[in-house]
């Protein structure tokens, strides 16, 4: 240490160079700090603005009442809130088994040509514009039946969940040490039981987190629902009928010419972002329970 220090003092001009390095370091640190601040500004700005605009229309009746006709004060989005939950349920029914199964396959068959192809296609599917998913679902799940339906909407956003869940499952399964697989095989576990009972169970905490993130992501999707679930001004839980959804209701209300509908749209947006935040926080808690709870 002392040798290194004395050598800097001995060479001419080295203090100048040191000064220049320090300045460069301070400048770079400041720049990255500013970039980090800018990165979180949109979220904070949106949250603040939403709360200011939406809080006024938010009340218990917003959650329990049906939409009121134009001109009538009050009213709520009970049907849209429930509709969104129903759609998420359908999406999870479609997306989770396929996504988790595919993720397990990718992780256990790492390096095989088919796995590489599937992984690449999952990434492509992940980047697919959601409106394209909506059109596709309309063509195959709406047009043949002649009417919009909750099932078509749920299937469309469920398909969007698949690549998200697939990749998270794959990553989480890959974090399970190979030694654990070998331990199970050496005990006389068949391969399939090793995968399901040891590997998948060990990775479950991480997979749940990924699933919640995927749910939060698709909960706010609007485009795939426009011509599948379509929206519904009335109370409907029939899966074969059009169903209301928060993003759709926000879309319709925000596009309208009425001030009280605009206010309702702001309130709806606040509820939607609140839903997404709650899911994200649960995901974090699940993650922490898994990685901070004394387990390795």
């Amino acid at each position, binding site marked *: 240490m002392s040798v290194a220090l004395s050598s800097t003092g001995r060479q001419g001009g080295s203090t100048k160079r040191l000064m220049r390095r320090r300045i460069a370091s301070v400048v770079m640190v400041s720049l990255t700090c500013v970039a980090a601040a800018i990165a979180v500004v949109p979220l904070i700005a949106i949250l603040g603005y939403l709360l200011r605009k939406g809080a006024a229309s938010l009340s218990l009746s917003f959650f329990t009442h049906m939409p009121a006709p134009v001109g009538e004060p009050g009213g709520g989005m009970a049907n849209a809130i429930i509709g969104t939950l129903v759609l998420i349920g359908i999406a999870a029914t479609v997306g989770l088994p396929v996504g988790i199964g595919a993720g397990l396959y990718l992780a256990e068959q790492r*390096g095989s040509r088919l796995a590489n192809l599937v992984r690449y296609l999952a990434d492509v599917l992940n980047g697919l514009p959601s409106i394209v998913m909506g059109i596709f679902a309309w063509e195959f799940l709406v047009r043949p039946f002649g009417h919009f339906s909750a099932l078509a909407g749920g299937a469309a956003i469920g398909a969007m969940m698949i690549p998200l869940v697939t990749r998270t499952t794959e990553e989480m399964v890959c974090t399970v*040490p190979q*030694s*654990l697989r*070998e*331990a*199970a*095989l*050496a*005990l*006389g*576990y*068949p391969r399939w*039981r090793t995968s399901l009972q*040891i590997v998948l*169970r*060990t990775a*479950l905490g991480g997979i749940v987190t990924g699933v919640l993130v995927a749910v939060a992501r698709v909960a706010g999707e609007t485009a795939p629902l426009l011509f599948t679930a379509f929206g519904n001004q009335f109370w409907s839980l029939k899966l074969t009928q059009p169903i209301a959804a928060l993003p759709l209701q926000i879309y319709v209300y925000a596009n309208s010419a009425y001030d009280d509908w605009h206010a309702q749209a702001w309130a709806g947006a606040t509820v939607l972002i609140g839903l997404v935040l709650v899911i994200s926080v649960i995901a974090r808690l699940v993650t922490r329970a898994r990685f901070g709870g*004394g*387990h*390795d």
Partner: protein
Amino acid sequence: MTDLAELRNEARPPTAVSSSGPVMAVQTMGLNAYFGDTHAVRDVTLDIPPNEVTAIIGPSGCGKSTLLRCLNRMHETVPRARVEGSVLLHEQDIYADDVDPITLRRHVGMVFQRPTPFPTMSIRDNVAAGLCVQPERALSRRQVDEVVERALCEAALWDEVKDRLRTSATGISGGQQQRLCIARALATSPHVLLLDEPTASLDPMSTQKIEELVYELRRTMTVVIVTHNMQQAARVSDRTVFMLSGEMVEAAPTRDMFTTPGDPRTEAYITGRFG
């Protein structure tokens, strides 16, 4: 499918003598093991007598772990790995077409270098894990509990964990986890127990406990232990096998190996001139 369970009766009487001498617990004949193009084990012919501890020693990368993993067909679970030659378990070829490796592994237990408790399972469920995958042996809860207690006692762990059998298996110390893994392997009553450097990641106290345990186990089973620690081999084993570059240089009673090695390479290794 050959029922290896039948072998248990033949295995026990240590005096069983066939025309060619005592029945060996494990015999390898012209065993070669490969990883892709890498020739990891070269033409090993080895007899492992029953109810003895056989230690396999040698420098890192000499193929000792691979040889061990050929004995319960774990070697073939690695992609591009293959085996040539034969391995006899109580005179029965475990690489025969009609032998199911999954059944085989229930008779040849294995413990690895690092403790591998299943993190999602309790201590009790870890020990019972091997029992629960045996479809032909549906045990009642009480029977499972009895086996768990027996296995934990045999692994000298019962007194330390008997009050927290339902707690997570990752909450105990590394040495205890390794004894838990031994208990898990013992629960299925294997004929042969394979130990792959079982104390490599443990402190001296835990190491001593496991060595005492290994010494006890040979009363009821055949133990094969891979170790890079020659003192350990000298302490726990009856016979020692020395391997170098994938070849078996020498196999002899441990006492002879460490006092009068038959091969100059063995002598060079055990006197510390390389390795």
